[in-house]
């Protein structure tokens, strides 16, 4: 049971920074997370180990959410905490020149006119936990910005979120621009958000849709054939 494994992490009395970092994700303590990371850097800990420890906790949380043991606020709290530290970890990995075994590169964003972040953030966190490299380019993202990011990061997957029925059509716009720029065949497109349905996703020519954050992570694996 994921929740009992999480409880072990939460109740761990070991004060070493790696245990504290893991614990910070289960108790949603951003300050503890950042401070623990800094201590780990002072001890010259391999950033790949830090990444693996964090994503292990996030995977357990995702599983517990799927099993109805944890709920939305927990998913958000954990991914919020992860977001405070992930950029720091990624920078360290980049600086160290280490090879991260990545399942694929994903560009993630909420479409133009839409500023909803919570669902997108959860998806990003779970995708990272699953082993993807995720570039979350934020909210209110224009088609042009999506295309630029795809080219810059050499994305395998584009993941777009829309919560409003009025903004969901932006996703269609992005796809048609990608077709014009001959990018459509080299990038898989997945869409999501409260305004999106399977029918809508099919009608705009997306490669995949899922209504839940854990489902999105599974869909991403399917799209790249893993």
């Amino acid at each position: 049971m994921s929740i009992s494994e999480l409880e072990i992490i939460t109740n761990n009395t070991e004060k070493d920074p790696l245990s504290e970092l893991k614990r910070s994700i289960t108790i949603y303590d951003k300050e503890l997370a950042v401070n623990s990371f800094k201590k780990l850097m002072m001890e010259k800990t391999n950033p790949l180990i830090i990444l693996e420890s964090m994503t292990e906790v996030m995977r357990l949380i995702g599983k517990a959410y799927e099993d109805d043991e944890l709920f939305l606020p927990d998913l958000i709290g954990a991914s919020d905490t992860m977001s405070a530290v992930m950029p720091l970890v990624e920078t360290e990995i980049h600086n160290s020149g280490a090879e991260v075994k990545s399942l694929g590169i994903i560009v993630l964003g909420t479409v133009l006119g839409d500023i909803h972040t919570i669902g997108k953030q959860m998806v990003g966190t779970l995708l990272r936990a699953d082993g993807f490299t995720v570039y979350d380019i934020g909210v209110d993202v224009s088609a042009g910005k999506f295309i630029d990011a795809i080219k810059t990061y050499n994305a395998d997957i584009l993941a777009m979120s829309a919560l409003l029925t009025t903004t969901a059509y932006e996703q269609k716009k992005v796809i048609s621009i990608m077709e014009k720029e001959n990018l459509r065949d080299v990038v898989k497109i997945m869409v999501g958000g409260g305004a999106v349905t399977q029918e809508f996703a099919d009608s705009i020519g997306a490669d995949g849709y899922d209504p839940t954050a854990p489902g999105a992570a599974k869909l991403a694996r399917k799209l790249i054939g893993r």
Partner: protein
Amino acid sequence: MPIRGLKGGMLKFLNDEDLKSIHFATLEILSEVGIKMEHKPALEVFTSFGANVDFDNSVVKIDEQLLNKALSTAPSRFTLYGKNETFDVKVDPERVYTIGGSSALNVLDLDGNYRPALFEDLIKFTILLDKLEHLHIMHAIVIPSDLEEYGVDRMLFAGTFPYTTRNYYSQSQTGADGVLDQIKMAAVVQGSEEAVRKNPMFTEVVCMVSPLQHEKINSEVLIEAAKNNIPVYVEVDAMPGGTTPAPIAGTLVEQNANVLAGIILAQLVKPGAPCIYSIASGLMDMTSGGYSGAAPETNLLHCATAQVAHYYNLPFQGGTGIDAKIPDAQAGYERAMQVLSNALAGTNFIHLSFGMMEMMLSASYEQCVIDNEIMGATFKMLKGIEVNDQSLSIDLLRKVGPKSAHFLTFKETSEYVRKNYWVPQITDRNVWGSWKAMGGKSMKESAAEVAKKILSENTEPMISREQTEEITKLAKSFHSKALERLKKKNE
């Protein structure tokens, strides 16, 4: 750790004046009209306490003093024992529990067939019900059509008791001998008859006749159970407008006189004998003349009877099957209104609340699972609302201030949700697209999946195979002996 149920009683249809009026009316009926008791030894018990008994007409009149004396020893709290402490139920006039069962003749099976119940169904239903979280007490849900009826309670014991972890709600069709046979069967698991009498893993129910009559067998069973410390559900099954007066208050009086007479007898035989004030009354449908378990009037009657029983500090069993034939909208609304109102009224045992359809004539596998879900939602409401400095959230509101905020992102929310959230198992809350994508299932279909999964993964009894075989052997022997006795009596 034993089970300590949630407390009900917030729903009160009767006020203190009403309860007093019902009490005084009952005293008048008991002392001036009396109760017919066919069982001579029962009448003799009353004579020995100075009560007014008319042996020619088998009527006993019980006055206020005798009532007060006897009820003063009736326990308001006791334990009903399961196979181990985790399933022990702590009974009192406040806590709410559920009982499965009982006695359906037909089955609506998972292939959609409506057919007579078989012994195999009894075992399968028991296995299924035993895995449902909100079921506290197990009662045999069907009467197998493939067994001889007289003395079949022995075989019901063999088809239910071994397959459940819960305390077993039993009955004896044939009289005191049934109680003694069942003690012997329970002893196979409990070690000795003495152990059974000390902490019995089963109970008995006796069903009186309205208006105001106790049949021979029921008094016999009542007395034998009381003597052996087996708790008794003293039950009345009134039909307002049929066997009792149409106004609910009139039925409350009849039920009260009838049930209390039984509890008084138990106390006179053995002071301190655990008794549960019980009804399975139902409105008489005035178009068909049939019984309605789910009519709103029935709900009113059961809720009010809870108050009457609690007036005497006695635990109360209410609730009955629903009228729907299939797990449809009728079944949903009938069961929900019935169990929610009973829980809020403080019915201590909501009986027949899992799977019983068609005025208790049939049992549905899917409905068992659906009813468990309805019970979960009911218990969530029964838990009520906590108002304290923390839940008032003043400091959080002050911290957030008059600007946009997403309480979903706060730690306070995740802590609260984790402790307090009710997780539906087969209730769908998705939008159409997601629901369709996941199969677009009706609640009945989801329930069928759960039932099939439980039945395919669980086939064994909750006690050892040897003990199960021993109990079954005894049951068969007791059953055929009872049939022999009946044959001889009729010759």
